[in-house]
Structures are given as C-alpha cells and as structure tokens.
C-alpha cells in the first residue's frame, strides 16, 4: 500500500501495487513536470520504483493566483 498526499488540494489517496512514479503520475493524470513527487526530503524522477509503505507527497506546481 502506498499513501499519497496531494498538495495544494490536501487530499490523501491510497494505492495498491504501483511500481513506479511514472505509473502514479499516470493514475493522477499528471505529466512529468506538472508536479513535484516527494519522498522524505528527496525528489523522485518518473523511473523511480515505489515500495510498499511509501508515503509520497505530490506538489502540483501550476500557480493558481
């Protein structure tokens, strides 16, 4: 199980069996440079593998104001 927290929507989602960041981005309808993908204090590139128990923050970058 992977826990995903989406900013700035403040929404939490859970996914089973998502092998890579790219698959997560596709599930969320995001392209490579639409959002930061954060694990701990690191940024992840699309090819990074996700692990069971990962907590990921998605920070969308298009400014809204």
């Amino acid at each position: 199980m992977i826990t995903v927290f989406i900013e700035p929507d403040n929404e939490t989602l859970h996914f089973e069996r998502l092998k890579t960041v790219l698959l997560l981005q596709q599930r969320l309808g995001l392209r490579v440079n639409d959002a930061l993908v954060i694990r701990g204090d690191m940024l992840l590139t699309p090819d990074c593998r996700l692990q069971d128990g990962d907590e990921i923050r998605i920070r969308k970058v298009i400014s809204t104001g």
Partner: protein
Amino acid sequence: MKCRKCKAPAEIDLPSHNTACCRACFAEYFTGQVDKAIRHHGLINPGERVLVALSGGKDSLSLMLELSRQGYDVTGLHVDLGIPVSSAAARAKVENFCTARGLKLKVVELIKEGLPIPDVKQYIHRPICSACGKIKRHWFNRVALTDGFQVLATGHNLDDEVARLFANTLRWDAGYLSDQGPCLAAESGFARKIKPLYRLTEFETACYAFLNGIEIHTAPCPYSSGATFTGHKKLWSDLEYTSPGTKIAFYDGFLKRGRPAFAQVDKDQGRAVAPCTTCASPTSTGVCGVCRLKIAVTERRAADPDRQTDPDRQ
C-alpha cells in the same frame, strides 16, 4: 535516472532541456539560467540596489534567495493586503524566510494605509484582482522611488511570461508586443522592472524552493476564482509535452524576432507625467489612480451605516 552531468542519481527530470539533474547540478543549472537572463538583458548593473516583490509564493522567495546568493544587494518588499487569515499567513511565511536567511525586508500594511483589499472589494465596483494588482504595483513603485532602489524585481517565471505573451499574441496587441520582456527600462520616475526568472519554469522554481527548504504560502487567494491564465497554461503544458522546448523557443524567438518588429511601429504618445499631488508617485492624471481609489473607499466606508459606531445598535 542519472544526472546527465555528474552521473549521480538524478532528482529532477527536465525533458524540455533533454537532461536530468542531481540536486547539486540543478542548483548550478538554476544559477546559470538566472545569470544568463541578467547578463543577456542587462537586468542589474554593478552597485544597483534591488527591491524584490515578495508575495510568499515559491517564485518570489526563490528569486530573493538566488539573487542574494549571487551577491546582489537585495531588499524584500511585502505588501500585507489586510485580508483576514490569508494575509497574516502569507506575511508570516515571508517574515520567517527573511529572518532565517538574514535578508532585508520591508512591509507595507494596506490597513495602515487606509486601503485594505476587503474594503476595496466592498466599495469599488470593478474586478478585485485588477484593483489589487494595481495597488500592489503602486506600492512597489512607490517604495522603490522613495527609498532609492534602481531596480524592481518580480518572480514571474517562464510559464507566466509565455501565458501572458500568448494572450497578447492571440489579440495581436501591438502596444504590448512592442515592449513585453524580462526588462522594462526605467522611465518617468519609475524604477527599472526586471524578471530574472523568465527562463525558468514553474516546475523548476518549485524544485528550487523545495530543495532549499523554503516554506511557501500556497493557499489560493480567497477572493480569486482561479488563475487568470490557467486555460492557456494547460494548453502550453500540452504543447511542451508534445514538443519539449517549445515554451522557451516561443519566448526567446519573440524577443529576437517578434518584439523588434513591433518596436518599429509608432508607439502611442505618452502623456505628460508629473508627481501625484497626494503621494508623489509619477502619474499623468494629477492625483494617481491608487490615491483616487483610496479617496473613494474612504468616502464610501464613512457613509456605510454598518461600519459606523451606532450606540442604538450596540
């Protein structure tokens, strides 16, 4: 994915530049892009004092940090709009950032100036985002003028600039196309206005802010129904995805081959500019637009029964 330059594990994939970076090489890349913008367009001359407009968002705080690291003499300016909850939160982010980094900061409080945005919204019948933008620009100009800054820097990024250029190109707005760019020369008592982040995308400034531990204000303005250019930003995201590099090519191509064509077209004659008789800001209308706004708000607020202390109703 490995850093294209040093082969360490990459943290940032940048298909637009056909590259990927580790955080150290990304910092170099970011610095290089800002430096290229400054040198190529003469944005800051040696010894000039730079006032940086700080909203509390990722772009303005990243700009402030990067300019200070490059050794420029920078001072932040935050305009506290006086919107309940939201403005205090944004201001706290700006103040904490400047304090922690030892950076100079000035704050203008619109409540103290008699023109808080909630009152403008209540008493002035025009789109609040446009009035608010006008008031903020007024204060940036005014502080630059009265405190002797030669340069006023804003955090506009490539996505902002491309969306704006695109909107003006759709209308073929010749006046705008004749002078849009990362540098607007000092004129009529206004400081030079510069956009040192114009080569960097929103994604890149967001990465920079994260990698430098900058805490940013992300809550949207409670009065804004959404970004002005969101529709065009989506369109440009599609174009960039299909053809990486299209954004910067469009903007650089405009600067090289588009703007010069429009610059040859006669500009409308500027009207005579003189100091505002109330606040001394340059204006062509005797009393400047923001001072007139303030007069209107003050009058209507005074005439509003709900805003007066009425002993019978207490």
